[in-house]
């Protein structure tokens, strides 16, 4: 085995950067690994290289991001861009790949800061070219300033939907309409949580400002939309939906869908860490303590991988995880850790105050996934339809991994990231069990594909 580094952090978004800065300031040797070519994660993607006209996108808080990135660049953190972490083992070894090489690197402590992924959402026509997630559209916008040719339609449920639409608008694109798929009862149900949310009024103000901005630009905001469908031959031609009791079909060549975020949990799952179903957020969450520490004493999770709570909360969670690592590796004592953590906890709690309200307001109609037509593809990697899955269920296989073995759903390149949630809903509906009892795919490394040639030349550090 090679000599162990102090702390390996995976993911260079707000959580990973903050964790790295905190731990490095306290004297740890910190290595930060990230798939992307530049630091910042999704929210501050390509921010350093962005031309001036892309620096005023609403909602991104460019100044905060620039400050974070400047401090990072000035720090001692060893940064490894375009480096894939394809495994973390219980022996505390990271499996890394970059530039055609693969190697194992032991670490004394590890922080996972892999962020979030958009909730996959199958509906009729979702695999047609022209349909993509709003997050993917945002990446194109932030990295290359690219917007769709011709009017685009935004559809979904979640605060990010409005934000990305507003950014799109700011970039000069035309938006045909924004279809809000949040179910009718959400607003009323969320009302009771408004007082708590008022502790973080800036989020509410920002949300209202985004809506105002879209309305002023003449974007129709259509609420309580159901039965979304993309239609067309080789490309989206029209989008059909139901609202206010009638079906409407509009011409559109681009449909950007966003149904909220899920913790990106494949690495945590591959370590067999326990996860719990969060009925408020309708997702699985790793079981962690207040520092983000897991049942493995050397592993913590920070940011949206801990809990979907936005970029500011992710920075705070990163700082807490950095303090956890510094204390765990003996750089500070418990009293010092707690002293430094107290103000961070206060700021974090203020950020978290708005989440119950937002979670309820934008709760997606998850039960719709169980009603998908048989013909609709659920697993895009292996082209497995809802009907294929129901057929396997009818054979008496009522467990996620059994359906995987029988139908190949979840066996493809994405390791089931895209279909796990839908498969669980289908099983829950067909077997009458709560989705919390259905569970998820057994995850194993490599959690991202690795070239066989790299594995054959794996540098183990043993010689």
């Amino acid at each position, binding site marked *: 085995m090679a000599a162990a580094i102090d702390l390996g952090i995976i993911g260079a978004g707000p959580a990973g950067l903050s964790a790295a800065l905190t731990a490095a300031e306290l004297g740890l040797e910190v290595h930060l690994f990230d798939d992307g070519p530049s630091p910042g994660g999704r929210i501050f993607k390509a921010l350093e290289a962005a031309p001036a006209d892309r620096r005023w996108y609403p909602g991104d808080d460019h100044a905060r991001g620039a400050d974070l990135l400047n401090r990072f660049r000035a720090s001692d953190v060893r940064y490894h861009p375009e480096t894939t972490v394809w*495994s973390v*083992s*219980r*022996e505390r070894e990271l*499996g890394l790949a970059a530039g055609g090489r693969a190697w*194992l690197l032991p670490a004394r402590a590890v922080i996972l800061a892999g962020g979030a992924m958009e909730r996959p959402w199958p509906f009729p026509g979702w695999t047609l070219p022209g349909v993509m997630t709003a997050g993917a559209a945002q990446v194109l916008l932030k990295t290359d300033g690219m917007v769709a040719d011709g009017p685009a339609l935004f559809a979904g449920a979640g605060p990010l939907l409005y934000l990305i639409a507003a950014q799109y608008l700011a970039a000069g694109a035309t938006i045909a309409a924004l279809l809000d798929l949040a179910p009718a009862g959400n607003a009323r149900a969320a009302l009771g949580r408004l007082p708590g949310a008022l502790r973080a009024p800036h989020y509410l103000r920002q949300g209202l400002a985004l809506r105002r901005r879209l309305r002023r630009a003449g974007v129709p905001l259509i609420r309580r939309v159901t039965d979304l469908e993309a239609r067309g031959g080789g490309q989206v031609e029209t989008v059909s939906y139901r609202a206010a009791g009638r079906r409407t079909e509009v011409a559109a060549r681009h449909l950007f869908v966003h149904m909220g975020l899920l913790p990106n949990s494949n690495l945590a799952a591959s370590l*067999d860490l326990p996860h719990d179903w969060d009925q408020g957020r309708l997702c699985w969450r790793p079981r962690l303590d207040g520092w983000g520490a897991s049942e493995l004493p050397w592993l913590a999770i920070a940011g949206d991988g801990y809990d979907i709570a936005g970029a500011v909360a992710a920075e705070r969670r990163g700082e807490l995880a950095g303090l956890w690592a510094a204390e765990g590796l003996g750089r500070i004592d418990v009293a010092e850790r707690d002293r430094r953590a107290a103000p961070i906890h206060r700021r974090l709690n203020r950020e978290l105050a708005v989440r119950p309200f937002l979670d309820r307001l934008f709760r997606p109609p998850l039960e719709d996934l169980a009603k998908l037509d048989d013909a609709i593809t659920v697993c895009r990697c*292996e082209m497995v339809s809802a009907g294929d899955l129901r057929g396997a269920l009818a*054979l*008496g*296989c009522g*467990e996620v*991994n*059994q359906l995987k*073995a*029988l139908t*190949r759903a979840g*066996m*493809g*390149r994405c*390791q089931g990231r895209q279909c796990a949630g839908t498969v669980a809903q289908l099983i829950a509906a067909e077997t009458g069990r709560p989705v919390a009892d259905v569970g998820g795919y*057994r995850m*194993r*490394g*490599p959690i991202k*594909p*690795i*070239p*066989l*040639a790299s*594995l*054959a*030349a*794996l540098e*183990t550090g*043993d010689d």
Partner: protein
Amino acid sequence: MTSGTYDAIVVGGGLHGCSVALHLAQRGLSVLVVEKDTVGRHASGVNAGGVRRLGRDPAEIPLSQAAMEMWWRIGDWLGDDCGFQVSGQLKVAETAGELAELEARARQVADLGYDHEELVGPDELFRLAPALARHCTGGLVSRRDGFADPFRTTRAFMRRAREAGAEFLEGTAVTAIERRGGAWTVRAGEYRLSAANLINCAGGWGAGLAAWLDEAVPAETAAPMLMVTAPLPPFVEPVIGAQGRALSFKQTGAGTVVIGGGYRARALPEENRTELDFRELKLSARTVAELFPIMRQADIVRCWAGLEAITPDGIPVIGPSAREDGLIHLFGFCGHGFQLGPITGRIVADLLTSGQTDLPIAPFAVDRFAG
């Protein structure tokens, strides 16, 4: 408390347990399979699916031949083709020395009276597997061997067994076993069960169960690893092994390539888990890169391992207990039990119904390691 009385209780719902259940039920015996997880959850559901006679221990050849006859009509028998394909199995030599070893092996098998293993030179080798690296010197082929889908096969046996009247109790571990008055009493969860016969099909936990019944077998639990690539255009039909290295290599109908060979993960049977060992998978990847240059472009998308039992002599335990009446052991298949699945159930059914079987099982005796 729920109770039930059966002719036989099978502990372990893997392929062998399901095969036993099917054969017993088809002969009119009442049988219950008790499975602590779900049927096909461990090695039976996640093995490489090799349906291979090629290269077997001489003691296994008669059983393997009899099983092969059943594989060739598996669809008619089970009502599900189990994804079985007659692709051939090919063991490759890379040096003149290895080819000489294969030649000796071919002679040994022929002397035993079998003709399924056939020595081939380079011309036929590269005709059978054009993508093989050119340094290969020849091979041994069993043309009518193949592979199947392991999970689907195990479930097909289970389904057919159920149709024939067998019962399955999943998600329920056996917590107590007693022999009293010529019958077995088995506690499993809230169930209190009894049976004249107990069949140990507990796979990776089989030696533990045997030890529990005072019949220790020096088997260890191991977890052979497999890895699979993203789909590639079709480039190889037979399943490939190698004389000088640990390898099992096949391209499936989906285009993916499944790579194994016995490199082991850390086995944690008490926790029902395995942990992959990438140092070992490196050796597996290196073998493949050297034997199939086309594979250097491939991406590995998943790896996994299944828990199973390995005996010191590399062949399973099949047959009656040496200590107790009404107890039969069927475990320790050492990473190559899948092909034998159809026949092991028949052997147990023979033993239970007539006290004997026409297949030579003496080499698999449970007490062969004693003394």
